[in-house]
Protein backbone atom coordinates (compact mmCIF):
# COMPACT_ATOMS: atom_id res chain seq x y z
CA UNK A 1 0.00 0.00 0.00
CA UNK A 2 2.60 2.53 1.10
CA UNK A 3 4.88 1.29 -1.64
CA UNK A 4 2.45 2.20 -4.39
CA UNK A 5 1.62 5.50 -2.71
CA UNK A 6 5.28 6.34 -2.52
CA UNK A 7 5.73 5.47 -6.15
CA UNK A 8 2.72 7.58 -7.03
CA UNK A 9 3.94 10.53 -5.00
CA UNK A 10 7.31 10.21 -6.60
CA UNK A 11 5.82 10.13 -10.10
CA UNK A 12 3.58 13.10 -9.40
CA UNK A 13 6.38 15.03 -7.77
CA UNK A 14 8.62 14.34 -10.71
CA UNK A 15 5.98 15.45 -13.22
CA UNK A 16 5.40 18.77 -11.58
CA UNK A 17 9.00 19.20 -10.57
CA UNK A 18 10.03 18.78 -14.15
CA UNK A 19 7.44 21.27 -15.29
CA UNK A 20 8.73 23.76 -12.77
CA UNK A 21 12.33 23.13 -13.69
CA UNK A 22 11.64 23.55 -17.38
CA UNK A 23 9.88 26.83 -16.80
CA UNK A 24 12.80 27.90 -14.68
CA UNK A 25 15.38 26.98 -17.26
CA UNK A 26 13.51 28.92 -19.91
CA UNK A 27 13.46 31.93 -17.66
CA UNK A 28 17.16 31.78 -16.91
CA UNK A 29 17.93 31.53 -20.60
CA UNK A 30 16.53 34.98 -21.09
CA UNK A 31 18.54 36.67 -18.39
CA UNK A 32 18.62 39.84 -20.42
CA UNK A 33 14.94 40.35 -19.85
CA UNK A 34 15.63 40.76 -16.18
CA UNK A 35 17.45 44.00 -16.67
CA UNK A 36 14.22 45.77 -17.58
CA UNK A 37 12.15 44.77 -14.59
CA UNK A 38 15.03 45.10 -12.16
CA UNK A 39 15.46 48.64 -13.34
CA UNK A 40 11.75 49.39 -13.14
CA UNK A 41 11.49 47.96 -9.66
CA UNK A 42 14.47 49.95 -8.49
CA UNK A 43 13.12 53.11 -10.06
CA UNK A 44 9.75 52.66 -8.43
CA UNK A 45 11.29 52.03 -5.03
CA UNK A 46 13.45 55.10 -5.40
CA UNK A 47 10.61 57.37 -6.43
CA UNK A 48 8.37 56.21 -3.61
CA UNK A 49 11.15 56.57 -1.08
CA UNK A 50 11.30 60.21 -2.17
CA UNK A 51 7.53 60.52 -1.88
CA UNK A 52 7.54 59.15 1.65
CA UNK A 53 10.45 61.36 2.59
CA UNK A 54 8.50 64.37 1.35
CA UNK A 55 5.38 63.17 3.18
CA UNK A 56 7.20 63.00 6.49
CA UNK A 57 8.78 66.41 5.89
CA UNK A 58 5.35 67.92 5.46
CA UNK A 59 3.09 69.17 8.24
CA UNK A 60 1.21 65.89 8.54
CA UNK A 61 4.40 64.05 9.22
CA UNK A 62 5.51 66.35 12.02
CA UNK A 63 5.01 63.70 14.66
CA UNK A 64 7.10 61.26 12.67
CA UNK A 65 4.16 58.86 12.40
CA UNK A 66 1.15 58.64 10.14
CA UNK A 67 -1.40 55.85 10.53
CA UNK A 68 1.15 54.03 12.64
CA UNK A 69 3.95 54.18 10.05
CA UNK A 70 7.16 56.16 10.20
CA UNK A 71 9.26 57.02 7.17
CA UNK A 72 11.49 53.99 7.21
CA UNK A 73 8.61 51.62 7.83
CA UNK A 74 6.59 53.09 4.98
CA UNK A 75 9.48 52.67 2.58
CA UNK A 76 10.17 49.09 3.66
CA UNK A 77 6.48 48.36 3.36
CA UNK A 78 6.50 49.52 -0.23
CA UNK A 79 9.60 47.49 -1.03
CA UNK A 80 8.02 44.23 0.11
CA UNK A 81 4.59 45.01 -1.31
CA UNK A 82 6.02 45.53 -4.77
CA UNK A 83 7.78 42.19 -4.68
CA UNK A 84 4.38 40.57 -4.89
CA UNK A 85 3.54 42.65 -7.94
CA UNK A 86 6.84 42.29 -9.74
CA UNK A 87 7.43 38.68 -8.87
CA UNK A 88 3.94 37.26 -9.08
CA UNK A 89 1.88 39.92 -10.80
CA UNK A 90 1.88 38.98 -14.46
CA UNK A 91 0.94 35.33 -14.75
CA UNK A 92 -2.23 36.29 -16.53
CA UNK A 93 -0.80 37.04 -19.94
CA UNK A 94 0.92 33.75 -20.49
CA UNK A 95 -2.02 31.84 -19.03
CA UNK A 96 -4.59 33.67 -21.12
CA UNK A 97 -2.58 33.00 -24.21
CA UNK A 98 -2.32 29.31 -23.42
CA UNK A 99 -6.04 29.17 -22.93
CA UNK A 100 -6.84 31.11 -26.06
CA UNK A 101 -4.35 29.49 -28.36
CA UNK A 102 -5.95 26.15 -27.90
CA UNK A 103 -2.98 24.79 -26.04
CA UNK A 104 -5.81 23.74 -23.82
CA UNK A 105 -7.14 20.95 -25.95
CA UNK A 106 -3.61 19.69 -26.31
CA UNK A 107 -3.00 19.78 -22.60
CA UNK A 108 -6.37 18.36 -21.68
CA UNK A 109 -5.21 15.11 -23.09
CA UNK A 110 -2.26 14.95 -20.78
CA UNK A 111 -2.32 12.81 -17.67
CA UNK A 112 -2.10 15.41 -14.97
CA UNK A 113 -4.03 18.22 -13.43
CA UNK A 114 -4.49 21.08 -15.85
CA UNK A 115 -4.40 23.66 -13.12
CA UNK A 116 -1.60 21.97 -11.23
CA UNK A 117 0.60 21.75 -14.27
CA UNK A 118 0.32 25.44 -14.98
CA UNK A 119 0.93 26.22 -11.34
CA UNK A 120 4.22 24.38 -11.37
CA UNK A 121 5.25 25.82 -14.70
CA UNK A 122 4.56 29.40 -13.65
CA UNK A 123 5.79 29.31 -10.09
CA UNK A 124 9.22 27.95 -10.88
CA UNK A 125 10.48 31.04 -12.66
CA UNK A 126 8.37 33.34 -10.51
CA UNK A 127 10.18 32.19 -7.39
CA UNK A 128 13.48 33.07 -8.97
CA UNK A 129 12.11 36.49 -9.91
CA UNK A 130 10.83 37.10 -6.42
CA UNK A 131 14.17 36.17 -4.92
CA UNK A 132 15.96 38.61 -7.18
CA UNK A 133 13.59 41.42 -6.28
CA UNK A 134 13.89 40.51 -2.63
CA UNK A 135 17.63 40.87 -2.84
CA UNK A 136 17.40 44.09 -4.77
CA UNK A 137 14.78 45.44 -2.39
CA UNK A 138 16.93 44.64 0.62
CA UNK A 139 19.89 46.47 -0.87
CA UNK A 140 17.92 49.52 -1.90
CA UNK A 141 16.00 49.61 1.34
CA UNK A 142 19.16 49.61 3.41
CA UNK A 143 20.55 52.42 1.27
CA UNK A 144 17.44 54.55 1.29
CA UNK A 145 15.87 53.87 4.68
CA UNK A 146 18.52 52.26 6.79
CA UNK A 147 18.59 48.62 7.86
CA UNK A 148 15.16 47.14 8.53
CA UNK A 149 13.98 47.51 12.09
CA UNK A 150 13.06 44.37 14.14
CA UNK A 151 14.51 42.04 11.60
CA UNK A 152 14.69 38.65 13.29
CA UNK A 153 14.95 35.22 11.72
CA UNK A 154 11.41 34.47 12.87
CA UNK A 155 10.10 37.46 11.01
CA UNK A 156 12.15 36.56 7.95
CA UNK A 157 10.70 33.05 7.95
CA UNK A 158 7.19 34.40 8.32
CA UNK A 159 7.84 36.78 5.45
CA UNK A 160 8.98 33.97 3.17
CA UNK A 161 5.89 31.98 4.05
CA UNK A 162 3.62 34.95 3.50
CA UNK A 163 5.22 35.74 0.15
CA UNK A 164 4.79 32.16 -1.01
CA UNK A 165 1.14 32.27 -0.01
CA UNK A 166 0.70 35.64 -1.67
CA UNK A 167 2.36 34.43 -4.85
CA UNK A 168 0.23 31.31 -4.98
CA UNK A 169 -2.89 33.34 -4.39
CA UNK A 170 -1.87 35.67 -7.19
CA UNK A 171 -1.51 32.71 -9.48
CA UNK A 172 -4.86 31.11 -8.79
CA UNK A 173 -6.78 34.34 -8.96
CA UNK A 174 -5.12 35.31 -12.22
CA UNK A 175 -5.67 31.84 -13.60
CA UNK A 176 -9.35 32.01 -12.79
CA UNK A 177 -9.57 35.29 -14.69
CA UNK A 178 -7.53 33.87 -17.55
CA UNK A 179 -9.91 30.96 -17.87
CA UNK A 180 -12.76 33.32 -18.65
CA UNK A 181 -11.15 33.23 -22.09
CA UNK A 182 -13.06 30.01 -22.59
CA UNK A 183 -16.17 32.18 -22.85
CA UNK A 184 -14.98 35.70 -23.58
CA UNK A 185 -11.95 36.10 -25.77
CA UNK A 186 -11.14 39.72 -24.99
CA UNK A 187 -10.75 39.33 -21.25
CA UNK A 188 -7.75 41.57 -20.73
CA UNK A 189 -10.03 44.19 -19.22
CA UNK A 190 -10.93 41.89 -16.32
CA UNK A 191 -7.29 41.42 -15.49
CA UNK A 192 -6.58 45.14 -15.71
CA UNK A 193 -9.34 45.85 -13.23
CA UNK A 194 -7.97 43.17 -10.91
CA UNK A 195 -4.48 44.62 -11.26
CA UNK A 196 -5.55 48.16 -10.41
CA UNK A 197 -7.47 47.06 -7.36
CA UNK A 198 -4.44 45.11 -6.23
CA UNK A 199 -2.37 48.22 -6.75
CA UNK A 200 -4.58 50.54 -4.75
CA UNK A 201 -5.51 48.10 -2.00
CA UNK A 202 -2.28 47.53 -0.17
CA UNK A 203 0.49 48.01 -2.72
CA UNK A 204 0.93 51.71 -3.34
CA UNK A 205 -0.34 52.54 0.11
CA UNK A 206 -0.66 50.52 3.30
CA UNK A 207 -4.32 49.73 3.89
CA UNK A 208 -4.25 51.82 7.04
CA UNK A 209 -4.11 54.89 4.84
CA UNK A 210 -7.41 54.21 3.14
CA UNK A 211 -10.56 55.77 4.48
CA UNK A 212 -12.29 53.65 7.14
CA UNK A 213 -15.14 52.50 4.90
CA UNK A 214 -12.68 51.43 2.20
CA UNK A 215 -10.63 49.50 4.74
CA UNK A 216 -13.68 47.59 5.87
CA UNK A 217 -14.63 46.77 2.30
CA UNK A 218 -11.07 45.72 1.48
CA UNK A 219 -11.08 43.25 4.34
CA UNK A 220 -13.75 41.28 2.49
CA UNK A 221 -11.58 40.91 -0.60
CA UNK A 222 -8.49 38.82 -1.33
CA UNK A 223 -6.45 41.93 -2.16
CA UNK A 224 -4.98 42.52 1.30
CA UNK A 225 -3.58 38.99 1.16
CA UNK A 226 -1.63 39.78 -1.98
CA UNK A 227 0.67 42.61 -0.91
CA UNK A 228 -0.46 43.95 2.43
CA UNK A 229 0.01 40.69 4.32
CA UNK A 230 3.66 40.02 3.45
CA UNK A 231 4.55 43.71 3.66
CA UNK A 232 2.93 44.09 7.04
CA UNK A 233 4.61 40.99 8.35
CA UNK A 234 7.93 42.32 7.13
CA UNK A 235 7.71 45.70 8.83
CA UNK A 236 5.34 45.79 11.76
CA UNK A 237 3.24 42.77 12.60
CA UNK A 238 3.66 41.11 15.93
CA UNK A 239 3.02 37.38 16.30
CA UNK A 240 -0.76 37.52 16.82
CA UNK A 241 -1.24 39.85 13.89
CA UNK A 242 1.12 37.79 11.77
CA UNK A 243 -0.78 34.62 12.51
CA UNK A 244 -4.05 36.28 11.64
CA UNK A 245 -2.70 37.59 8.32
CA UNK A 246 -1.29 34.23 7.33
CA UNK A 247 -4.49 32.35 8.18
CA UNK A 248 -6.50 34.81 6.12
CA UNK A 249 -4.07 34.21 3.26
CA UNK A 250 -4.47 30.46 3.58
CA UNK A 251 -8.23 30.78 3.61
CA UNK A 252 -8.28 32.88 0.46
CA UNK A 253 -5.78 30.57 -1.18
CA UNK A 254 -7.98 27.54 -0.58
CA UNK A 255 -10.95 29.45 -1.88
CA UNK A 256 -9.06 30.49 -5.00
CA UNK A 257 -7.93 26.92 -5.68
CA UNK A 258 -11.50 25.70 -5.40
CA UNK A 259 -12.64 28.50 -7.67
CA UNK A 260 -10.06 27.55 -10.27
CA UNK A 261 -11.02 23.91 -10.22
CA UNK A 262 -14.68 24.82 -10.48
CA UNK A 263 -14.12 27.12 -13.43
CA UNK A 264 -11.94 24.51 -15.05
CA UNK A 265 -14.59 21.79 -14.66
CA UNK A 266 -17.18 24.11 -16.11
CA UNK A 267 -14.93 24.98 -19.03
CA UNK A 268 -14.23 21.36 -19.72
CA UNK A 269 -17.88 20.53 -19.79
CA UNK A 270 -18.39 23.39 -22.20
CA UNK A 271 -15.52 22.30 -24.39
CA UNK A 272 -16.62 18.74 -24.72
CA UNK A 273 -20.07 19.97 -25.62
CA UNK A 274 -18.99 22.67 -28.02
CA UNK A 275 -15.90 20.98 -29.33
CA UNK A 276 -13.52 23.80 -28.26
Amino acid at each position, binding site marked *: MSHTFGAYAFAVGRKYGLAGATGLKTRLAYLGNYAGSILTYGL*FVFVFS*RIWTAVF*ESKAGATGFI*AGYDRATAIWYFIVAEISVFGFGRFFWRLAEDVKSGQVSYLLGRPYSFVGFHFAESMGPALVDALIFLAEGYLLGTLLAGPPAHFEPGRAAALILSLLLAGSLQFFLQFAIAMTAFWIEENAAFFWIFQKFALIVGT*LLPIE*FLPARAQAAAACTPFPSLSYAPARIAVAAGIPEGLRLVSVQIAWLLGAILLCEAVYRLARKNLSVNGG
Partner: protein
Amino acid sequence: MHKQSRIKAYARFLGASFSANFLAVIEYRANFLLQVFGMMLNNGAFALFWGVLLGRTGGIGGYDFTDVMIVWAITSSAFGLAHVVFGNIRNLGRIIMQGELDVYLLQPKDVFLNVLASKTIVSAWGDLAYGLVVVALLPRFDVQRLALFCVLTATGAVIFASTFAAAESLAFFLGNSQAISSALSEFLLSFSLYPETIFDKGMRWLFYTILPSGFIAFVPLAVYKSLDWRRVPVLIFVAVLYAGLSYAFFRAGLRRYESGNQMGARV
Protein backbone atom coordinates in the same frame (compact mmCIF):
# COMPACT_ATOMS: atom_id res chain seq x y z
CA MET B 1 8.12 79.43 -53.47
CA HIS B 2 9.96 76.15 -53.47
CA LYS B 3 10.20 76.16 -49.67
CA GLN B 4 6.48 76.80 -49.34
CA SER B 5 5.54 73.89 -51.58
CA ARG B 6 7.91 71.68 -49.56
CA ILE B 7 6.10 72.58 -46.37
CA LYS B 8 2.76 71.96 -48.01
CA ALA B 9 3.97 68.62 -49.28
CA TYR B 10 5.12 67.59 -45.81
CA ALA B 11 1.90 68.79 -44.25
CA ARG B 12 -0.03 66.66 -46.70
CA PHE B 13 2.32 63.72 -46.05
CA LEU B 14 2.02 63.89 -42.26
CA GLY B 15 -1.72 64.32 -42.55
CA ALA B 16 -1.97 61.29 -44.79
CA SER B 17 0.28 59.28 -42.45
CA PHE B 18 -1.83 60.20 -39.47
CA SER B 19 -5.05 59.35 -41.25
CA ALA B 20 -3.68 56.00 -42.41
CA ASN B 21 -2.59 55.29 -38.83
CA PHE B 22 -5.97 56.21 -37.47
CA LEU B 23 -7.80 54.05 -40.01
CA ALA B 24 -5.53 51.08 -39.30
CA VAL B 25 -6.27 51.41 -35.61
CA ILE B 26 -10.02 51.88 -36.00
CA GLU B 27 -10.07 48.76 -38.13
CA TYR B 28 -10.02 46.95 -34.80
CA ARG B 29 -12.63 48.99 -33.02
CA ALA B 30 -13.03 46.72 -30.03
CA ASN B 31 -9.33 46.55 -29.36
CA PHE B 32 -9.03 50.32 -29.68
CA LEU B 33 -11.72 50.96 -27.10
CA LEU B 34 -10.25 48.33 -24.85
CA GLN B 35 -6.79 49.89 -24.93
CA VAL B 36 -8.17 53.37 -24.31
CA PHE B 37 -10.14 52.01 -21.38
CA GLY B 38 -7.08 50.23 -20.04
CA MET B 39 -4.94 53.33 -20.08
CA MET B 40 -7.58 55.44 -18.43
CA LEU B 41 -8.03 52.77 -15.79
CA ASN B 42 -4.32 52.70 -15.12
CA ASN B 43 -4.02 56.45 -14.80
CA GLY B 44 -7.19 56.56 -12.75
CA ALA B 45 -5.72 54.14 -10.22
CA PHE B 46 -2.81 56.46 -9.60
CA ALA B 47 -5.15 59.42 -9.34
CA LEU B 48 -6.95 57.53 -6.62
CA PHE B 49 -3.65 56.85 -4.89
CA TRP B 50 -2.76 60.52 -4.87
CA GLY B 51 -6.24 61.44 -3.73
CA VAL B 52 -6.04 59.13 -0.75
CA LEU B 53 -2.48 60.04 0.21
CA LEU B 54 -2.85 63.77 -0.14
CA GLY B 55 -6.23 63.60 1.54
CA ARG B 56 -4.34 62.29 4.49
CA THR B 57 -1.30 64.55 4.34
CA GLY B 58 -2.69 67.67 2.72
CA GLY B 59 0.09 68.16 0.24
CA ILE B 60 3.80 67.39 -0.12
CA GLY B 61 6.75 69.35 -1.41
CA GLY B 62 4.54 72.33 -2.08
CA TYR B 63 2.27 70.30 -4.34
CA ASP B 64 -1.38 69.82 -3.48
CA PHE B 65 -3.79 67.41 -5.13
CA THR B 66 -4.66 69.76 -7.98
CA ASP B 67 -0.98 70.31 -8.75
CA VAL B 68 -0.29 66.61 -8.91
CA MET B 69 -3.30 66.08 -11.16
CA ILE B 70 -2.21 68.84 -13.53
CA VAL B 71 1.29 67.38 -13.81
CA TRP B 72 -0.11 63.94 -14.43
CA ALA B 73 -2.54 65.29 -17.03
CA ILE B 74 0.06 67.24 -18.97
CA THR B 75 2.53 64.37 -18.93
CA SER B 76 -0.13 61.84 -19.83
CA SER B 77 -1.43 63.87 -22.76
CA ALA B 78 2.03 64.83 -23.98
CA PHE B 79 3.19 61.22 -23.80
CA GLY B 80 0.00 60.12 -25.48
CA LEU B 81 0.22 62.67 -28.27
CA ALA B 82 3.86 61.79 -28.94
CA HIS B 83 2.96 58.13 -29.40
CA VAL B 84 -0.20 58.82 -31.33
CA VAL B 85 1.54 60.88 -34.00
CA PHE B 86 5.01 59.30 -33.87
CA GLY B 87 4.09 55.80 -32.84
CA ASN B 88 7.39 54.31 -33.95
CA ILE B 89 9.59 56.18 -31.50
CA ARG B 90 9.96 53.20 -29.19
CA ASN B 91 10.52 50.84 -32.12
CA LEU B 92 13.21 52.91 -33.78
CA GLY B 93 16.10 50.98 -32.22
CA ARG B 94 14.72 47.68 -33.37
CA ILE B 95 13.99 49.05 -36.85
CA ILE B 96 17.57 50.24 -37.14
CA MET B 97 18.99 46.94 -35.92
CA GLN B 98 16.94 44.89 -38.36
CA GLY B 99 17.83 46.99 -41.36
CA GLU B 100 14.24 48.06 -41.85
CA LEU B 101 15.18 51.63 -42.59
CA ASP B 102 15.78 50.63 -46.21
CA VAL B 103 12.13 50.95 -47.14
CA TYR B 104 12.11 54.51 -45.87
CA LEU B 105 15.37 55.36 -47.61
CA LEU B 106 13.70 54.44 -50.88
CA GLN B 107 10.98 57.01 -50.39
CA PRO B 108 11.38 60.69 -51.20
CA LYS B 109 10.59 61.93 -47.76
CA ASP B 110 12.75 62.65 -44.76
CA VAL B 111 13.60 59.30 -43.20
CA PHE B 112 13.29 60.49 -39.58
CA LEU B 113 9.77 61.84 -39.93
CA ASN B 114 8.68 59.05 -42.23
CA VAL B 115 9.75 56.19 -40.01
CA LEU B 116 8.46 57.80 -36.81
CA ALA B 117 5.10 58.76 -38.27
CA SER B 118 4.31 55.45 -39.90
CA LYS B 119 2.74 53.92 -36.82
CA THR B 120 0.44 54.88 -34.01
CA ILE B 121 0.23 53.32 -30.57
CA VAL B 122 -3.33 52.42 -29.73
CA SER B 123 -3.11 52.73 -25.96
CA ALA B 124 -1.55 56.17 -26.30
CA TRP B 125 -4.91 57.51 -27.40
CA GLY B 126 -6.08 56.61 -23.92
CA ASP B 127 -3.27 58.57 -22.33
CA LEU B 128 -4.04 61.54 -24.54
CA ALA B 129 -7.71 61.43 -23.67
CA TYR B 130 -7.03 60.96 -19.97
CA GLY B 131 -5.13 64.19 -19.60
CA LEU B 132 -7.86 66.14 -21.33
CA VAL B 133 -10.54 64.60 -19.19
CA VAL B 134 -8.67 65.36 -15.97
CA VAL B 135 -7.98 69.02 -16.67
CA ALA B 136 -11.56 69.45 -17.80
CA LEU B 137 -12.71 68.19 -14.42
CA LEU B 138 -10.39 70.39 -12.38
CA PRO B 139 -11.62 73.73 -11.08
CA ARG B 140 -11.31 76.94 -13.09
CA PHE B 141 -11.32 75.22 -16.44
CA ASP B 142 -12.22 77.48 -19.34
CA VAL B 143 -11.46 78.05 -23.00
CA GLN B 144 -8.18 79.81 -22.28
CA ARG B 145 -7.02 76.99 -20.05
CA LEU B 146 -8.02 74.51 -22.71
CA ALA B 147 -5.98 76.35 -25.32
CA LEU B 148 -3.02 76.58 -22.98
CA PHE B 149 -3.29 72.90 -22.17
CA CYS B 150 -3.22 72.03 -25.85
CA VAL B 151 -0.11 74.11 -26.42
CA LEU B 152 1.66 72.61 -23.40
CA THR B 153 0.68 69.13 -24.54
CA ALA B 154 2.13 69.85 -27.96
CA THR B 155 5.46 71.12 -26.65
CA GLY B 156 5.65 68.25 -24.17
CA ALA B 157 4.92 65.77 -26.95
CA VAL B 158 7.70 67.15 -29.11
CA ILE B 159 10.17 66.93 -26.22
CA PHE B 160 9.06 63.40 -25.35
CA ALA B 161 9.32 62.26 -28.95
CA SER B 162 12.71 63.88 -29.44
CA THR B 163 14.21 62.37 -26.31
CA PHE B 164 12.86 58.89 -26.93
CA ALA B 165 13.96 58.98 -30.55
CA ALA B 166 17.44 60.11 -29.57
CA ALA B 167 17.72 57.29 -27.03
CA GLU B 168 16.64 54.78 -29.65
CA SER B 169 19.06 56.26 -32.19
CA LEU B 170 21.87 54.98 -30.01
CA ALA B 171 21.30 51.75 -31.88
CA PHE B 172 23.18 53.26 -34.82
CA PHE B 173 26.28 53.48 -32.66
CA LEU B 174 25.96 50.84 -30.00
CA GLY B 175 24.14 48.05 -31.76
CA ASN B 176 21.69 46.49 -29.37
CA SER B 177 21.08 49.44 -27.10
CA GLN B 178 17.59 48.37 -26.16
CA ALA B 179 18.44 48.25 -22.46
CA ILE B 180 19.75 51.81 -22.35
CA SER B 181 16.96 53.33 -24.38
CA SER B 182 14.30 51.54 -22.34
CA ALA B 183 15.93 52.74 -19.15
CA LEU B 184 16.10 56.32 -20.34
CA SER B 185 12.49 56.25 -21.43
CA GLU B 186 11.31 54.78 -18.15
CA PHE B 187 13.21 57.33 -16.13
CA LEU B 188 11.92 60.22 -18.18
CA LEU B 189 8.31 59.14 -17.92
CA SER B 190 8.51 58.36 -14.21
CA PHE B 191 10.16 61.59 -13.24
CA SER B 192 7.65 63.56 -15.28
CA LEU B 193 4.76 62.11 -13.34
CA TYR B 194 5.83 62.92 -9.81
CA PRO B 195 6.33 66.30 -8.11
CA GLU B 196 9.68 67.82 -8.90
CA THR B 197 10.30 68.93 -5.35
CA ILE B 198 10.49 65.48 -3.85
CA PHE B 199 13.82 65.00 -5.59
CA ASP B 200 17.15 66.32 -4.35
CA LYS B 201 18.29 69.65 -5.67
CA GLY B 202 21.34 67.73 -6.82
CA MET B 203 19.23 65.64 -9.15
CA ARG B 204 17.15 68.42 -10.57
CA TRP B 205 19.66 69.61 -13.13
CA LEU B 206 18.87 66.29 -14.88
CA PHE B 207 15.32 67.45 -15.41
CA TYR B 208 16.46 70.28 -17.62
CA THR B 209 18.94 68.35 -19.68
CA ILE B 210 18.89 64.68 -20.58
CA LEU B 211 15.65 63.84 -18.76
CA PRO B 212 13.67 66.96 -19.63
CA SER B 213 10.81 66.46 -17.16
CA GLY B 214 11.30 70.05 -16.19
CA PHE B 215 10.27 71.25 -19.62
CA ILE B 216 7.59 68.63 -20.11
CA ALA B 217 5.79 68.90 -16.79
CA PHE B 218 7.20 71.14 -14.10
CA VAL B 219 7.53 74.45 -15.87
CA PRO B 220 4.23 73.85 -17.70
CA LEU B 221 2.59 73.29 -14.31
CA ALA B 222 3.54 76.77 -13.22
CA VAL B 223 2.55 78.19 -16.57
CA TYR B 224 -0.83 76.48 -16.48
CA LYS B 225 -1.68 77.49 -12.94
CA SER B 226 -0.83 81.12 -13.45
CA LEU B 227 -1.95 81.28 -17.08
CA ASP B 228 1.48 82.73 -17.85
CA TRP B 229 1.47 82.84 -21.65
CA ARG B 230 4.74 84.76 -21.70
CA ARG B 231 6.69 81.63 -20.93
CA VAL B 232 5.06 79.67 -23.74
CA PRO B 233 7.49 80.93 -26.44
CA VAL B 234 10.34 79.74 -24.23
CA LEU B 235 8.83 76.28 -24.06
CA ILE B 236 8.26 76.28 -27.80
CA PHE B 237 11.87 77.27 -28.31
CA VAL B 238 13.06 74.48 -26.01
CA ALA B 239 10.87 71.96 -27.82
CA VAL B 240 12.28 73.00 -31.18
CA LEU B 241 15.79 72.76 -29.72
CA TYR B 242 15.27 69.22 -28.50
CA ALA B 243 13.75 68.28 -31.85
CA GLY B 244 16.68 69.74 -33.72
CA LEU B 245 19.25 67.95 -31.57
CA SER B 246 17.40 64.67 -31.89
CA TYR B 247 17.17 65.08 -35.66
CA ALA B 248 20.86 65.86 -35.96
CA PHE B 249 21.76 62.84 -33.88
CA PHE B 250 19.61 60.63 -36.06
CA ARG B 251 21.18 62.01 -39.24
CA ALA B 252 24.63 61.32 -37.88
CA GLY B 253 23.57 57.76 -37.18
CA LEU B 254 21.98 57.45 -40.60
CA ARG B 255 25.27 58.35 -42.23
CA ARG B 256 26.78 55.49 -40.34
CA TYR B 257 23.97 53.19 -41.42
CA GLU B 258 24.50 54.13 -45.04
CA SER B 259 28.18 53.42 -44.81
CA GLY B 260 27.16 49.94 -43.77
CA ASN B 261 29.63 49.88 -40.94
CA GLN B 262 27.26 50.19 -38.02
CA MET B 263 27.56 47.60 -35.32
CA GLY B 264 26.18 44.30 -36.42
CA ALA B 265 25.80 45.42 -40.00
CA ARG B 266 23.70 43.07 -42.03
CA VAL B 267 25.85 42.46 -45.08
